[in-house]
């Protein structure tokens, strides 16, 4: 095969499919202008193939390449690192395609494609990306195959490609299990790569959580060892917001120096939590987590905080006592902070608080009166609350009366503080959905929630959920049930898409398995595995040795297998047997004593429509088998011819 030959249409189509599959997922992170450039270059390629147009002049291609380089330089500011690198490669791949004059160009383009497929994992390591990369690799393999034999039918190409990839599987497994692993990603990713991650923040303004309400993204997954707590107790504790400036709630002072008193009481729930990366220090845990988690510190407001922002999916084994009392002997300073309010805002709410506190010093009574007031105020729970002005709480409580959980929590805590009761806002997630496939509880960004904690003498910090007053179903059955029917909901949350939800359940269960077994296969797990198979102190040398050994053994086995196969049957025999088998399936098996030419004649009579083809194959086999010429090319031609034979 000459490298200088112009690629055929079939080869170009396979190459185009490979490139498109490779580049499409990159569109999620490439700059928009670059995606557009790539797309139009690919489109031009299609047009040229279709119209059989002439390949653009080399100077033009060079010009586009330089322009794209300049664009990348302007956009990223430099050429170093993965982002500009991938961007440049993407453009170059498209240009290579445009240039494609010879099969050598195709080979180069395939090499680039394979590299860019690997590049996908720089950005995302989910099951979906792995699937896409695998599809790309399959297409690349087929493209390379089509360079060898462009006339084979696509199904045969697909099969051969899949077989080739499958043959690499054992090596892949060995490398996966035994290649020495490093903690975290292999390539040092700059921290800003995580800026796009969504999730809770450590401050709250009206609207900040309802933003999340529309996001389907998974925040974390939980597997309970035993039965899960009832929905009304599924409060996943996140940042505790103490300081209020009239509009924004922020985290107050907390310390991790001394663990606060914690007396476990009530039922305990043990669970494993797989947290999606959110680029924040805090962890999420079921109210109220006890101290003593090895990977995290414990704060004075009963939260768990990691030592560094969570940037990779992390798994924690946690425990919760939902009904325990915390903070019975709370620090004075903390309680002082918990009644502090800015002096000037929301006069009407202050007046309301004064009313509610009239004539009683009992915090319990004030609390009961406040809840009662809220219940009677005819407040509406909605994802689209109206915009609020300076006195946001006044407007919410007395004018608009429509709000999301942050409005409720904010207003409630404000009123409590104004009445002199220590209170604070707690943000986190509430609820979650149990995936029926693998029984994990999936908590999404749309489950983000804000509630309140009130400090009561003798009972400590008591959780009060003001949202539950207005929309009790939010707590019991989730967001979709609590919102009025006409409100815009995330697509999947609508009941009419239940089949789609089932599909999502399956997909997420699969993804979870992938996360745990593939992405979660970290150095610790590798060590565990090696210890289990009998290596007491495995280090990288042991791993290297094992890796080399098993790869060697596997290669040897493959060689022996291939050799045995070759010994057993030469390709001509295999082809002839497959031909005979194929026709046997159509009811015309060869008699053992029947010579090829006689068989061909009989087949020609049995299948008159394919007479010429069948006789030709039989005749060619007879010539190759019993004749003097031993040209491998003729054998290969015959093999292809038999493979393509279709009697339908």
């Amino acid at each position, binding site marked *: 095969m000459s490298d200088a030959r112009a690629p055929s249409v079939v080869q170009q189509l396979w190459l185009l499919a490979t490139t498109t599959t490779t580049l499409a997922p990159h569109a999620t992170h490439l700059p928009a202008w670059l995606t557009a450039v790539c797309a139009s270059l690919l489109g031009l390629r299609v047009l040229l193939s279709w119209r059989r147009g002439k390949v653009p002049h080399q100077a033009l291609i060079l010009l586009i390449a330089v322009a794209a380089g300049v664009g990348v330089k302007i956009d990223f500011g430099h050429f170093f690192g993965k982002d500009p690198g991938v961007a440049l490669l993407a453009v170059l791949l498209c240009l290579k395609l445009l240039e494609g004059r010879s099969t050598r160009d195709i080979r180069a383009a395939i090499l680039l494609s394979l590299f860019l497929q690997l590049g996908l994992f720089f950005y995302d390591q989910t099951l979906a990306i792995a699937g896409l990369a695998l599809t790309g690799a399959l297409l690349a393999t087929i493209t390379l195959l089509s360079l060898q034999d462009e006339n084979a039918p696509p199904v045969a190409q697909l099969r051969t490609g899949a077989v080739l990839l499958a043959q690499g599987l054992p090596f892949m497994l060995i490398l996966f299990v035994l290649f020495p692993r490093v903690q975290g990603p292999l390539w040092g990713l700059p921290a800003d790569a995580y800026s796009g991650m969504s999730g809770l923040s450590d401050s709250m303004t009206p609207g900040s959580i309802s933003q999340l309400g529309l996001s389907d993204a998974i925040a974390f997954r939980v597997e309970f060892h035993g039965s899960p707590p009832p929905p009304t107790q599924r409060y996943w504790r996140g940042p505790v917001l103490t300081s209020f400036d009239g509009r924004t709630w922020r985290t107050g002072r907390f310390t991790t120096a001394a663990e606060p008193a914690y007396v476990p009481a009530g039922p305990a729930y043990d669970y494993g939590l797989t947290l999606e990366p959110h680029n924040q220090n805090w962890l999420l845990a079921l109210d109220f987590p006890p101290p003593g988690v090895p990977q995290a510190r414990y704060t004075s407001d009963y939260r768990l905080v990691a030592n560094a922002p969570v940037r990779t999916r992390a798994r924690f084994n946690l425990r919760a006592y939902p009904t325990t009392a915390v903070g019975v002997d709370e620090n004075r300073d903390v309680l002082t902070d918990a009644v502090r309010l800015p002096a000037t805002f929301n006069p009407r709410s202050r007046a309301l608080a004064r009313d509610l506190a009239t004539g009683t010093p009992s915090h319990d009574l004030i609390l009961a009166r406040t809840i009662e007031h809220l219940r009677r105020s005819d407040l509406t729970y909605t994802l689209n609350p109206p915009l609020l002005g300076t006195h946001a709480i006044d407007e919410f409580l007395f004018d608009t009366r429509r709000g999301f959980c942050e409005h409720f929590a904010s207003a409630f805590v404000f009123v409590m503080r104004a009445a002199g009761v220590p209170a604070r806002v707690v943000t986190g997630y509430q609820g979650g959905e149990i995936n029926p496939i693998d029984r994990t509880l999936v908590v999404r960004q749309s489950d983000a929630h804000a509630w309140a904690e009130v400090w009561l003498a003798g009972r400590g910090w008591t959780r009060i959920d003001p949202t539950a007053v207005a929309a009790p179903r939010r707590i019991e059955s989730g967001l979709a049930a609590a919102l009025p029917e006409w409100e815009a909901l995330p697509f999947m949350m609508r009941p009419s898409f239940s089949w789609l939800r089932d599909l999502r359940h399956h997909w997420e269960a699969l993804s979870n398995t992938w996360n745990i077994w593939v992405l979660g296969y970290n150095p610790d797990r590798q060590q565990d595995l090696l210890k289990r198979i009998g290596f007491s102190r495995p280090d990288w040398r042991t791993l290297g040795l094992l890796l080399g050994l098993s790869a060697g053994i596997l290669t040897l086995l493959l060689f022996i297998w291939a050799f045995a196969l070759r010994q057993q049957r030469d390709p001509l025999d295999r082809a002839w047997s497959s031909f005979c088998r194929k026709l046997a399936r159509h009811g015309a098996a060869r*008699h*053992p*004593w*029947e*010579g*090829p*030419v*006689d068989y061909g004649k009989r087949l020609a009579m049995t299948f008159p429509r394919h007479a010429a083809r069948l006789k030709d194959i039989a005749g060619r086999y*007879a*010539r190759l*088998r*019993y*004749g*003097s010429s031993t040209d491998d090319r003729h054998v290969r031609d015959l093999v292809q011819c038999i493979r393509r034979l279709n009697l339908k």
Partner: protein
Amino acid sequence: MPHRHAIRVLEAANCIILGKERELRLALTCLIARGHLLIEDVPGVGKTTLAHVIARLSGLQFQRIQFTSDLLPADIIGVSIFDRDATTFRFHPGPVFAQLILADEINRATPKTQSALLEAMEEHQVTADAETHVLPEPFFVIATQNPSHQIGTFPLPESQLDRFLMRIRLGYPDRSAERALLMGEDRRELLERQNAVIRPEDLLTLQRAAHGVTVAERLVDYVQALLGSTRHSPELAGGLSPRAGLGLIGAARAWALIDGRDHVLPEDVQTVFPHVAGHRLHAAGDGRSAPPELLAQLVRDVAVA
């Protein structure tokens, strides 16, 4: 292309002997494979005509020897007679000194006479009075025998039958061929008018070309399997000899050559097998020569690799 010669002979022969294409082709195969042919059939089906046609078409010197019980070896080989002028014995060659001999009803002669001919066939030379005389080339014997009238005959012994490469039966012509025969011209006159279509040298070329036909390893495997099956079959008294094996390959080569191929297929072997093996094999019980059904079964028992 040497096989053109063969085709020409066959085309011309088919015009004279009607409806016997396969038998003619087998006879020519035998000739090209340098073997001798035994035709076994009742009288009047055209045995003599066949020999005559082949001789005439290929331009061979033809001699017919009618075998009778009183025929002596010298009647075939020739005699040395004292020449008074030269005062020495001079050899007078007998009818065996021809390129194509038709030995008619060979089983009527005594074993002694038979063996004289058979030795000549094997050695391609005759010895008379301690003098060796080389026979002409090509040298081809077509012997006929009548299987149904065995009284007063000396059936050829097995060892002698082995000298014939092939045995064929002509059989009665089919209806349309016989009709054409009955209504058409006298075959003898037709033959008289027919000229040779090839020269004897062409026949030698054909013989050499047949020798060059490829026999693949896989085909040898097949032939050996076939030979082995005759040796192990419980229905046969003894199997085929290595000489028969050589004959089988030689005949298959010639058949492939006439077919215009440069390599032998299992089909060729299968085609010639009954004719090469038939007179060499004997059924286990009664000692009669193996029936065609048994030969066909032998072929079916061996798988083509």
